[in-house]
């Protein structure tokens, strides 16, 4: 079975500051890793994914994440945040059938960007 731990439930930052949202996973098999964003009153949008290859993954809106197998982590980073990045961010893991396997989500991190 797989599980995901998002270490911070809320992260407040000031505009233009860097941010890191932490995610650790547990699995006995190889996994795919995802970050989704949920803006207020909207559905989920995929930010980025790690399937294989380079451990540094770049996504939309200037976000990137680094897969660290030894630490079983997949932390999300952005060097300079905007007010519009205020949202809830979910880390998720699936088996390596990807689109045909269920996603296991972390509890989410609420990012609040203040002016």
């Amino acid at each position, binding site marked *: 079975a797989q599980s995901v731990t998002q270490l911070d439930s809320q992260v407040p930052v000031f505009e233009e500051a860097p941010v890191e949202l932490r995610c650790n996973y547990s699995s006995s098999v190889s996994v795919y890793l995802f970050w989704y964003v949920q803006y207020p009153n*909207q559905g989920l949008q995929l930010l980025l994914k790690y399937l294989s290859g380079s451990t540094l993954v770049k996504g939309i809106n200037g976000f990137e994440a680094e897969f660290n197998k030894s630490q079983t982590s997949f932390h999300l980073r952005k060097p300079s945040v905007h007010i519009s990045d205020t949202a809830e961010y979910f880390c998720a893991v699936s088996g390596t*059938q990807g*689109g045909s396997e269920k996603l296991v*989500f972390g509890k989410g991190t609420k990012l609040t960007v203040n002016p």
Partner: protein
Amino acid sequence: SAVISQKPSRDICQRGTSLTIQCQVDSQVTMMFWYRQQPGQSLTLIATANQGSEATYESGFVIDKFPISRPNLTFSTLTVSNMSPEDSSIYLCSVGQLLNNEQFFGPGTRLTVL
């Protein structure tokens, strides 16, 4: 990427009634999933719905409470039966794309049970 719509977008229902949520996809997909997001919580998978077979339910979810239909490759419904206030949640459908190993989510149905 797949475009997914859900109906209704939100509803307020009385205890003991049932609500059927529709999920429509703009392309044929094999795998469809139904998730629940309780207030302030993460997403939990309810069931996986494949066309032409019975839905597969996760632990803690049963067909009598959450019957699912999957009549074709672009459509599915989830019914929340005999509702109680604890069923107040956002219900989201998603579809899996094997080509790029992603799941795409619908906008969700926000259900409030009084």
